[in-house]
């Protein structure tokens, strides 16, 4: 994959967020577990927020990414790989979300190799950092909700 401009990269990132939003929307529709369903709906909202942020950067309303630097726990790396079922639980939903954020981070990290100039590389780094932040946030939620006594 090759990008010729920052606009192209941001358009791609917006499409990725839209795709993720549709994915969570579908899971919310199919889930029978009320908690998981509500979580997926919340994730749809989250992805919309990410999309809006990217669009704001693209239009110049936001100057760049501003990650909070949430410490990583590397939880995603040790947890299993649940697959979607209708009776999926919040715990499995959280792991899926953590993995999706990790995959997105790795994708942007990988795309850096194809960046033609420093500006493009910088924006891909920003996108990767943003996804890493999302992953850390999901891990924090998992830690607070699932691992409450651990």
């Amino acid at each position, binding site marked *: 994959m090759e990008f010729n401009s920052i606009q192209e990269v941001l358009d791609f990132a917006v499409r990725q967020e839209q795709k993720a939003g549709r994915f969570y929307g579908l899971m919310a529709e199919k889930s029978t577990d*009320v*908690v998981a369903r*509500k*979580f997926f*709906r*919340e994730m749809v909202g989250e992805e919309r927020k990410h999309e809006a942020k990217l669009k704001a950067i693209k239009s110049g309303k936001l100057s760049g990414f501003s990650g909070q630097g*949430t*410490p*990583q*726990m*590397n*939880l995603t*790396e*040790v*947890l*299993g790989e649940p697959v979607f079922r209708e009776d999926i639980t*919040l*715990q499995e939903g959280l*792991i899926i979300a953590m993995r999706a954020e990790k995959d997105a981070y790795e994708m942007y990290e990988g795309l850096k190799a194809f960046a033609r100039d420093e500006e493009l590389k910088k924006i891909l780094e920003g996108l990767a950092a943003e996804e890493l932040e999302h992953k850390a946030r999901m891990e*924090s*939620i998992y*830690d607070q*909700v*699932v*691992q*409450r*006594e*651990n």
Partner: protein
Amino acid sequence: MSLKHVLQPFNAWVQAFSKPYTIPMKDTMRPGADRYRGWHINDVEKCVGCGTCADICQNAAIDMVPVKDPVKGDSGLRPKIDYGRCCWCALCVDVCTTGSLGMSNEYTWVEKDPEKCRYTPGVDAKPWDGSEKGWRQEEGFSLIVKDRVPMPMLDPKERIKTWAEVVVGYSVEEARKEAARCVSCGLCVAACPAHMHIPDYIGAIRDGDFEKALDFIYDNNPMPEMCGKVCTRRCEGVCSVGIQGEPLAIRWLKRFATEQFEDFAKVLHPEVKRVGEGKKVAVVGGGPSGVTVAYYLAVRGFEVTIYEALPQLGGATFFGIPKYRFPMPSLEKQVDLLKKAGVKIVTDHRVEKDEFRRLLEENDALFFGTGLMKPYKLGVPGEDLEGVIYALDLLRDHHVGKKVEVGESVVVVGGGNVAIDASRVSRRLGAEVTIAYRRRREDMPADDEEIEDAEAEGIELVTQSIPLRVEKLENGKLDFIWGPAEMVPPDRPGGRPKPKLIEGVENHLQVDRVIVAIGQKGEFEWMPEEVAEKVVTSRGWVEVDETGMTQWPGIFAGGDLVNSTADAISAIADGLKAVEGIQQFTLEGLSVSKS
């Protein structure tokens, strides 16, 4: 009388022109002795506003005045001294629970305005604030009795061979002696989620009036024998006596008071206002929150029915807490009183969707407190292997008398009270037990005392260990593989530090069982969709407003599903809140604001 005698007094005027014999006052005062009892000083940061100084003052020279917002363990009050009354006896200093109050060795202070002779040491600045000299509590001497009356307990080596209660209990003499240590500051009342009348019942125990103590206790806790044995005792964490000594054994004293009576109904004198007659309330779930709602509504005249899925009321305190901490007769006594109060109890009965809808129609209000009955899974590869079990299942099966086998060695994953209970039960079943916890020992949510007891029973604690996977070995055992963790700062100040896996290192532990106790969750399959959709959050909690009511008018909730602490006393506090909320809703028809 001669002329000489008449004129003699006027001779004295001659002295008016002579040098006076008085001694002029020196510019500098003689300093007070090193331990002089002069004007008060107070380290207001160390002071917790317990008011013990004001209580002991024989001249009522001390008022406790607000200087900041109260927080748990600090009333926000500080002593203000009236020097028109103070006799400088220093009893206030000698009794100070924190050692913050002292007296400088300064003794002169002149003010024209007598009002200024009342000040709050440490708050109203005075020249002697930094005084090093003066009266302080002597090292090793205090009017407070700092040492707790020890609780007799079974020897760790002996107790792992039995299911007998570990804690023996106080004798009358021991209980009264322990109760006499209380300074009645009341900081504990604010810290207790149910705001129990702690100084009152401790005072009654001290005076030997155990019936009165029970009356105080039952005023806002319908499961006091349970709390007397297993409460998380946040009250003791703020006990002012505990600042320089050991906190009052509040939990053990409550236990003592309840153990004095076989039948609570014979000795309790509840104030009964049967305001709820003609109103019906259904309670789904017979845990501490449900029992609280049922009992206090019943004594107010409401017609209450509890529906419980298990064979006995008590919720997690019934199936989750092992007998050596909370034996069945203790629970049965409390349930018995509930029955005598007129509560209808339906056990072994799981309410399902259609019945829930019917209950909603047939009752004036419905309360549910169905708790966190399902375990979270370990989430790592191998967790579905035979031999990986859940602490909740182990505890429940053991409690209802099912045969439970854990083999020779187990690892329990988790650091809460459920993990500790599962560990100690496994130990009593004959296994060597290791607890694997992701964080540090000081981060463990389990009660400190429970952790110490577990260690005394030979249970090993491996902290900062992150489960990686579980594998089946050829010898039939399980290989519990874990990695070490380093701690990274929490997301927010005051939060839990977070464990981060140090990659590339694997440790192995061969065991017969991996017992998972990382956390529990609520279950909502029994609840009608339209209700669940409205009351359950995306994290699996139930949101209620300040009266305990959910987003669905007339449906109230409480207990572990609602509060973040997931302990019995918080569930009781939720129940108390809902009692008032249900009364308001059913009798006054109040439309309650949503949180």
